[in-house]
Each structure stands twice: as structure tokens, then as C-alpha cells.
């Protein structure tokens, strides 16, 4: 099992090519936004990172459910991996948002509900690691970690809801149109770069989670649990 799967190597190479490609697309292909200027280009990776973070937390909850149903260790490894990688993506989203906010809002941080809930989401999943480290058996780590991951994921949609329910200054780029369809406030070129970065970040998420998952499995083997 220690041999690296060919498909993972392929995914590695794909990410190595596509992440710089997306960057080129964003820097040279998209038009400069009229009001905000070049700093608006942070948006593409910012939203993509936030998306990857949210997605990985949802995957963690799904993996947690998988563990509770099957009681197989592999689901716990997946849950742990997605949360760890998701934390990093969440941090990227927050930091890149700050870089954008400094010139646009004239401050690094506002106590806007959307920002606050994203930061809280990071704290929730940091607590996941505190919880795990203070449990003694592998079984209880997996079981209680799974429950916590599922309950926490319930707050991810609350985070997303909050932008609609709270009065917020965070921009809503993907607005629901009056007729019920969704409208994007972007030019076609912007849309292309936007969806490309979303796709690339999703690939990158899968790639990193896969690596982290293999690491978790190696750790288990190293501890002498049969796989």
C-alpha cells in the first residue's frame, strides 16, 4: 500500500499545471474591474478557497456519517484529512479577504457577520483537534470526532445563510435574480476565470486530502494496526 497510486501522481501533476494556469488566466485574461482596480483579482482565489474550505467541511461530515454507519477506520482518516485541509483553505480565504478589504473597506478586519462566522468556523474546527487530542482510544477519537464533525457541519449552512439574514457589507456576487434565476455580476471573461479557479481549487482540495489520507493510513500502520 505504501506505493503511491498512479492516479494520485497524475492529480499532482495536473494541479501543478492548472494552479499556475488559473493564475495566468486571472492576471492577464480577465479585465480589470472598473471601480476596485487590480485588487479585485483577489476575488477569484478568495471565493475558490472559501468554497474548497466549505466543501471539505461538508465532506468531513459525510465521512463522519460513513464512520458511524460502517465503523471502519478509513472513514475517520478521511474525516480528519478533510478537516485539516479545510482549515488551511479557510485560512487562505480569510487572509486573502483581508488583503482585499484593506484597500476597499480601508481596514483589515470588520466585525461583519460573514467574516465573523467564517472565523468562528475556523475555531470550531480547531476545537476538533483539541477534542481528538484529549481522547485516549482510537475508537473514541473516531466516534466522537465523527459526531462533532457532523454537528459542526450544521453550522456551515448557517454561515452561508447569515449573509442573507444579517445586514452585511460583504459583497454578494452571486445574487438571486427577481425572476428566481441566479445572476452573476460579472463579464463572460470574469466568469470563465471564476469557474476555472473554482474547478482548480476543487482539484487541489482532492489532491491534498488524498495525500493527507495516505499519511493517516501510514500512521495507523506504523502504530501497528492492521489495515
Amino acid at each position, binding site marked *: 500500500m505504501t506505493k503511491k497510486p498512479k492516479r494520485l501522481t497524475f492529480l499532482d501533476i495536473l494541479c501543478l499545471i492548472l494552479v499556475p494556469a488559473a493564475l495566468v488566466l486571472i492576471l492577464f485574461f480577465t479585465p480589470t474591474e472598473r471601480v476596485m482596480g487590480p485588487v479585485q483579482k483577489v476575488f477569484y482565489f478568495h471565493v475558490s478557497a472559501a468554497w474548497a474550505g466549505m466543501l471539505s467541511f461538508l465532506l468531513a461530515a459525510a465521512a463522519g456519517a460513513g464512520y458511524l454507519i460502517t465503523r471502519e477506520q478509513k472513514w475517520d482518516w478521511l474525516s480528519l484529512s478533510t478537516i485539516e485541509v479545510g482549515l488551511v483553505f479557510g485560512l487562505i480565504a480569510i487572509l486573502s479577504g483581508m488583503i482585499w478589504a484593506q484597500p476597499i473597506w480601508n481596514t483589515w478586519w470588520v466585525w461583519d457577520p460573514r467574516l465573523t462566522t467564517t472565523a*468562528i468556523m475556523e475555531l470550531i474546527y480547531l*476545537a476538533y483537534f483539541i*477534542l481528538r487530542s484529549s481522547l485516549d482510544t482510537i475508537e473514541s477519537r473516531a466516534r466522537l470526532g465523527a*459526531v462533532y464533525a457532523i454537528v*459542526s457541519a*450544521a*453550522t456551515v449552512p448557517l454561515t452561508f445563510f447569515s449573509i442573507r439574514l444579517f445586514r452585511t457589507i460583504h459583497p454578494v456576487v452571486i445574487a438571486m435574480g427577481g425572476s428566481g434565476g441566479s445572476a452573476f455580476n460579472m463579464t463572460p471573461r470574469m466568469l470563465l476565470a471564476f469557474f476555472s479557479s473554482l474547478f482548480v481549487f476543487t482539484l487541489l482540495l482532492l489532491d491534498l486530502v488524498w495525500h493527507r489520507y495516505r499519511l493517516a493510513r501510514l500512521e495507523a500502520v506504523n502504530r501497528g494496526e492492521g489495515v
Partner: protein
Amino acid sequence: MSAFRDYLSAVWNVLRKDFHVEWRGRQGVPVMLVFALLVVFLFNFALQLSPDLQAGLAAGLLWVSLAFASTLGLNRSISLEQENKAMDGLLLAPVDRSAIYFGKVLSNFGFTFLVGLVLLPVFSLFYQQNMFKPLLVLVLVLGLGAYTSLGTLLAALSIQTRTRDVLLPVLLYPLALPILIAAVEASRGILAGQPITDYQSWLTFLLACNILFAAAGLMFFETILEE
């Protein structure tokens, strides 16, 4: 139908037992109450609050002191059962384990609600505005209901860790944040005398939180306690 009656009577018995223990020992509610008052005093000096507090500040102060104080009660309600292995006795009872959960939620809710009811006139006195409003009591019911549903679940989770009850605030506060925001916003609206349409969505939100976290308890309480 009688199965449902049995279930309800199991819930009722856990609830009655907890109130019995509280009545004999009087170690939960008074401690929470004193603690809540201390929080109010600490904030008063730390933030240099004036007696003619704005509605928003009074609402926030009320909920922060309640949130802090109820952690004590939540921890106690589960750690109490760890003494003399009383929890094992409860778990051996031939009833659905979620009945134990709901009994515990109701007793925790009862205790924190009592604290809240005492705090209202105290706040009215200290901050020179009438906080005894029926709608505010409704917000107390909804907010504390959701808070204790989530809190009881997480208290059962944190008691299994090496650090015991120390972990509860770290797990509970970030996850309970949407509840607190909604409760504070609704209370603020009521205290400021706004029409109900202004904060109706927050009441609905709180109701949804109640259902969501009670469902989480129903699903996971047994998983958390299994050995």
C-alpha cells in the same frame, strides 16, 4: 401509543430526578445565578457601562452572562452522573437513551430558565429599563432551549475526554454562536420597542435551531455514550 407514553414517562423521570437532586443540594441554580451576576459586574467595570444602557448592550450582556453561567450547569448535569457511576445505572435502564437526553435537556433548560427569570428584574433594576416583557420571556425560552439542547449533547461529549469538563466552553461557544446572535438580535428588537416584523425572522431562526439541535441529540446521544 403506550410505547410513546413509556418514553415520555422516562423523560419525565429523568427530569424529576434532576430537580429532586437540585432541590436537595441546591448547588446548581444558585451557583449559576451568582456567576451570572458576577459576569454582569465584571462587564460593568471592564466596559465602563452607564446605567442608561442602550437596548443592544443590555440584550448582549444578558445573553453573555446566561451563556457563561449555563456552562456551569451543563457540565454539572453530566458530571453529577459520573459520580458513583450513576450514569451506568441510567444507561442500564430499559429505556431509549434519547429519553435520558431529553430529560437532561429539560432539566438543564429549567435551571437556566430560572436563572434567566431572576436576571430580568435584576437587569431592569440595574439598567433602568423594563425587561419584563412577555416576548422577551419567549426569546428566553427559545434561545435557552436551543442552547441547552446543543450544550447537553456537547457536555456528554466533553465529559469523556481526558480534560473532562474543561473542554465544554471551547466546543460549545463557537457552535452556539448562531443561537446567541439570533437571541441577542431578537432581544434587542424587543427592548428597543421595534415592531415584531423586524425581528420575526430571528424567532423563526431560533425555533429552527431548537429543532435542529434536538434532532442532533436524538440521533447522537446514544452514540456518544456507548462504551
